[in-house]
């Protein structure tokens, strides 16, 4: 018996030993804890770079953030048509049936605020004034935070000129995972965005490439923000700062058609773009351009095309090199020759559901690397056009506005008779309409068009073929005599020119107020 008791003591001892020896800490391999991430300049730089990486088209998700930053603008516009129903809910953006339960708008909201949070962790952790390098990084994060607030505001809040007191968006001034913020007013939202950009511009002193934010990027975005706010003098002032910086040039007529295929760092107009390396290219379903293009090897979906109204506008002048951004898809024979209609002699176009395919090349990389492009958020041309629009709205600014427009028309290769003068505005009623049309011609599919119309209280007419013309869709009048089969008219006071706040967000933050019109 004694022997056994001894043994038991032995076992109890053994257990205790084993037990005490169990260290149960197992730390992750793929990163560092928050308290270490931002403890030095290198960490701040790593996190800042992570914030740019957040804008890289990288996940296998057709609703990712960068895509939404463009699509939320372009799919509401009259530049684009969809050739057939798709389960991608941007279809509902396109035909103005969008609802509070769409993955696309949810991602713009959630991923947008995620980038804002990431930037806030840096802004909160680093006090300004320590070194120019750190100030530059704080400035870059402020720029990203501000830019993202702007894209969310354009998506979910009514245009600024519709009233400062309309519902804006929640303003995240600091990283706070427990916050359940309310929506600021539109006025507060745009004030915050502008203020942040002003501060960002002051903090940034380094001249990095266009793959990173810079003082000039902040000024360029300020010219856009003040234009949206109808603070025209400020819009002109900040546009001039960018122009006077001398860092940028308008691309030549000759190089313009291949401009977007170039690396953003060798593009003379590039102020801020997302740089993609070869390993960021994830093929077919990726990238802003994937819905509007399909490569010869089948990369991309190629389901949505340039609208007939956009093509007609571009086709006014056959010399216009901007027509090269649209690529008709011809039916080819086995030897690659274009096939022609026997009766009309017109080239035969490939169609989808009866709609001819006109691909848009603004997000298409060079041949062989078609899915690898570098989406540009801020381009020199836009800054000039911001200035032109602000001038057009400023007493005595009309001539200068027309000069800018004519500069672009000349660059596009148009003949002298295509130039406007104060006495010859073509078919336009006023200089503003001239500027807006040129803005459309220059910046189509770069996310601007719908907001440009609605903030200027213009009605959008979509009298071109497309699946938006189904009976029962908002604003649609079916007319068999119309060449397109009908028209969809969206007035600027339509509730659906902006998105609904995602209903699942209201579920978890009841302080969020829904937009009217649900």
């Amino acid at each position, binding site marked *: 018996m004694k022997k056994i008791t001894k043994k038991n003591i032995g076992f109890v001892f053994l*257990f205790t030993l084993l037990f005490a020896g169990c260290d149960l800490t197992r730390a992750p391999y793929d990163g*560092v804890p928050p308290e270490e991430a931002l403890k030095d300049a290198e960490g701040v730089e790593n996190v800042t770079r992570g914030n740019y990486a957040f804008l890289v088209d990288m996940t296998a998700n057709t609703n990712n953030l960068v895509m939404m930053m463009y699509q939320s603008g372009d799919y509401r516009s009259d530049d684009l048509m969809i050739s*057939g129903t798709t389960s991608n809910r941007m279809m509902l953006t396109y035909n103005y049936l969008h609802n509070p339960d769409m993955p696309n708008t949810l991602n713009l909201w959630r991923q947008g605020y995620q980038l804002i949070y990431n930037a806030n962790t840096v802004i909160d952790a680093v006090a300004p004034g320590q070194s120019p390098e750190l100030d530059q990084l704080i400035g870059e994060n402020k720029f990203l935070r501000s830019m993202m607030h702007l894209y969310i505001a354009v998506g979910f809040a009514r245009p600024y000129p519709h009233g400062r007191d309309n519902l804006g968006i929640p303003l995240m001034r600091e990283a706070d995972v427990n916050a359940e913020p309310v929506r600021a007013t539109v006025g507060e939202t745009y004030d915050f965005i502008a203020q942040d950009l002003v501060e960002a511009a002051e903090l940034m002193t380094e001249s990095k490439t266009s793959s990173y934010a810079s003082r000039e990027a902040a000024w360029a975005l300020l010219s856009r923000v003040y234009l949206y706010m109808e603070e025209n003098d400020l819009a002109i002032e900040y546009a001039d700062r960018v122009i006077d910086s001398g860092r940028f040039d308008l691309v030549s007529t000759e190089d313009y058609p291949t401009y977007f295929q170039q690396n953003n760092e060798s593009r003379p107009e590039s102020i801020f773009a997302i740089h993609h390396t070869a390993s960021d290219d994830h093929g077919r379903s990726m990238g802003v351009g994937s819905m509007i293009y399909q490569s010869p090897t*089948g990369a991309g979906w190629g389901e949505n095309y340039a609208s007939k109204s956009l093509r007609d506008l571009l086709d006014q002048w056959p010399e216009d090199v901007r027509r090269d951004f649209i690529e008709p898809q011809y039916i080819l024979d086995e030897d690659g020759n274009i096939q022609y209609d026997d009766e009309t002699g017109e080239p035969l176009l490939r169609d989808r559901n009866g709609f001819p395919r006109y691909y848009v090349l603004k997000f298409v990389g060079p041949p062989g690397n078609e899915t690898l492009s570098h989406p540009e958020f801020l381009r020199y041309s836009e800054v000039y056009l911001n200035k032109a629009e602000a001038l057009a709205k400023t007493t005595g600014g009309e001539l200068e506005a027309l000069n800018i427009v004519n500069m672009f028309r000349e660059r596009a290769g148009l003949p002298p008779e295509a130039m406007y003068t104060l006495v010859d505005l073509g078919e336009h009623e006023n200089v503003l309409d001239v500027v807006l049309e040129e803005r459309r011609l220059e910046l189509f599919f770069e996310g601007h068009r719908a907001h440009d119309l609605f903030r200027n209280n213009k009605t959008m007419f979509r009298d071109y073929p497309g699946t938006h013309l189904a009976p029962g869709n908002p604003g649609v009048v079916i007319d068999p005599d119309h060449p397109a089969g009908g028209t969809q008219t969206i007035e600027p006071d339509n509730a659906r020119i902006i998105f*609904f706040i995602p209903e699942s*967000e209201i579920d978890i933050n009841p302080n969020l107020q829904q937009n009217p019109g649900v």
Partner: protein
Amino acid sequence: MRKKIRALLFKSGFSVLIALIAVTTINAQQITVSGTVTSAVTGETLPGVNIAIVGESGGSVSNLNGNYEISVAADATLRFTFIGFEPQLVPVEGRTSIDVELSESTSVLDEVLVVGYGTISKRQITSSVAQVSGQDLQTVESHDPIDMLQGQMAGVVIERTSGQPGSNASITIRGQGSISASSNPLYVVDGVIAGTGSRDAVSPSDIASITVLKDAAATALYGSRASNGVVVITTKRGSSGSTQIDVRSSAGFSKTLLGNEEWMNSQELYDWHQQLVNASAGPFYQRSELLNTDVNWWDVGFDGGATQNYEASVSGGNDQTTFYLSGGYFNETGTGVGTNYDRVSGRVNVQHTFNDKLNVSSQVAGNYSVQNNVVAGAPYDMLTFAARNLPWDSPYNEDGTVRTGTEPDWYSRDSENPLYGMQWNSEEDKTTYFSGDLNLRYNLTDWAYFRTNNRFSLREGREIEFRDPRSQAGGSRNGEIAHDIDRSSSVITSNLLNLNKGWARQSLSGLIGFEFQENKSEDTYVLGTGLAPGMKILDAAATAFDTDGNIFESAFASMFAQAEYEWDETYIATVSFRRDGSSRFGANNRWGNFWSASGSWILSKEAFLSDVEFLDQLALRASYGTTGNAEISNYGAFGLYEFTRAYYGIPASWPSRTPNPDLTWEVAKTYNIGLDFDFLNRFSFSVDVYQRDNEDLLQNVTLPGTSGISSQLQNVGSVRNKGIEFQISSRNIETAQFSWTTDLTLSSNSNTVTGLNDGEAINYGGIYRIEEGHDINTIYMRKWHGVNPDTGAPQWEVVTRNDAGEITNVDITEDYGTANPQIVGATTPDFQGGLRNVFQYRNFTLNAFFTFQSGSQRYLGGGGLDHGAYMTTNKKHLQPGESYWRQPGDNATHPAQIVNGNNSAQLESTLFLYDNSYLRLRNLRLTYSLPPDNSLMQSVGLRNALLYASGDNLVTFTDYPGKDPVSGSYPIARVILFGIEVGF
């Protein structure tokens, strides 16, 4: 002495057990009897046999070699009892050496149940367990042992959700209790928590029995990860005696089941396009040349499959050493073109007894499988294309070559013929499982032994995706090949001190244990691009396009104790305690304590029922206990800035998680009351009522988008599952020539979410919602309100709610965006179960097995009824009783069909929500056993031989309009098999 011990015992608790170690039972001067206890069937020695002296206290237990020694009066009578065997009374009659042979019990009550860290007879059970063994495991032919259990255990829901060869069935025990943590049960193989691969490391033919532990009393000993129940798998052992060889083989064919789903042929689709409201706007209006082609894409994609299975085993041994060796080959060619699964497996189980103290055993098993999955296309795979592609598109040119789908006269929505890429492309999973156990048992005394079980297990998975440059999927990168390698290993050591002391009318047993488990997995992903056609190795790739990899580790430590006391085979009480720590939880809260208590009262042993002759057993069981769940990601409690991204080719970090140092165990608290009623030696009836509350749920709480962190693992919320389960067996007819038995399992589980983070509901998957007061599998969507009879427009409900969330008003809208979602049902059935009837006539056995469920709903997405939204995809027929709106006044179930769609009518709503109750003839098997006295058998020395024919999924009765009421996108098949089993 006896009184003293009993008084101590009744205080119960574990301290008693420890105290006992110091107390010796002393007997008066008498003779000493010794001997060996063996099994009358196998001749194997039986360790652990209880030897009591009738009418006296004291007793003994046979040791590991089946030897026993006991001091008794020369005229005493010994009673030998052992679970699974008939008790035997042996008068001593002055002998000092008595060898005893025990015969195996035929009563179901003496069935041996393999439970936590040991075995127990059904007669003694205090908890809720279900076990399937032997012939009942051989129903459907599958590589997956769980698949075979469907419908056989009340409260255990098993569903084969995919027809992909090699895919596993899902298993849920007593409802879903967790939200973010896994609801999968814990697997225990041969007494030890399974390592990597769990059930996949075990080949079905090697399984002796599978037991499912359902309530806390049964599972508490596995407390750490047992909150979703425990599946205990025991593999076969050899037994001493003549060497046995068993060979089994089956082969058959399978056919895809499309159920109630019917797709249009060429003419039907053409007619459909003509009847659209604005038909002339459609792309296919009056293009009758389309009718020249009529292709059924389901036939193209799913051309039938085949299954073959070969198994052989050798077992035997002598008094000291026994062995079981087996090998198997399983092959299933899926009904889907290009899919198949191959597996070779093997196992060696050896046991050796050195002397009456020491016994070692080892189990080594492994298998290697190659699974060919549905090949991804660009963009879709055959599963999608079979439903979408138009009957007007032929996959082949007239000369028999395969079309690409990019031809100008290809009409289907996506410009791809899936068969084109499948000429070269492949998606292959190669998986190796290895599991090796080394166990040692040492007898400290005749009532205490020490056991250590140690397992190393390894899974290596390699997923190879090859896309030839000639295919669309591979074209954009000029060919690509990806290897995704996952290597996971697990080491577990389980150390037990077992104590077992029996006296004439009572026994006390218990154990103390310590376990430690260390898991590690390493992922590597390499994508090479730029390949010459047909080159399928990474070395041939021009560019290393992408490389990823990560390492994950986790560790668990546990100590536990259990004590069981039995009085006169009438009162049984068990208590257990377990303390567990896991690396997955926050530094402040790694450890959790779990305990259980259970009791059983065998009423039929009481004097007042002893003269009720028809009664075989009447027992009442009750238990309460707590168990835990740690099935979350390894590092959910850690805050992290991840370095998994890069910008401009330079590493970058980003905040992906905020820390939660308080994160701890999810706890399930389970009550169970059960009644077992066996009578007339013919009927057996069990009913269990349970309630399980999962609390402190490990929940990935979605934070508001403005928070910037998508979610955080927190211990919030609770879910209640309660239900009732019936298990009924009846030997309806038993004659020499003919027998008929029936087994019925029936269970009903009701689920309620009882708490959430600040009461915030969770929406997921677009159509589901987790909301307080409702089922965890609640369906939440816009409610269809029929068709406007005047216009054919779709209509949905707009509900107005008050502050309490109650619906106060219901309006109707034709604008989908204005309509709002509401709770419309749940996927949880009211009840489900299985029914088996076995008819035996002479040497023929017919086994018919039905499964069923009722009262559940399922959303049938995936188009085909899109009201014109998609002009270039194939369409489904409506179900009987359904109709499309055609003209004003029509009272139709489905809206007018308009080119490019009718106002979002194709989007999620209850229009596509259906009842998926069903009754399925899951398996029908006819077996012919050659009689043992058959001359052929005798001439070739066969021990047994049988032939069978078997059919799976022969008939399914359901109103569900999809392919199958439960399975997913890869449809399940009807399988017809023929098999043979021979034993030498």
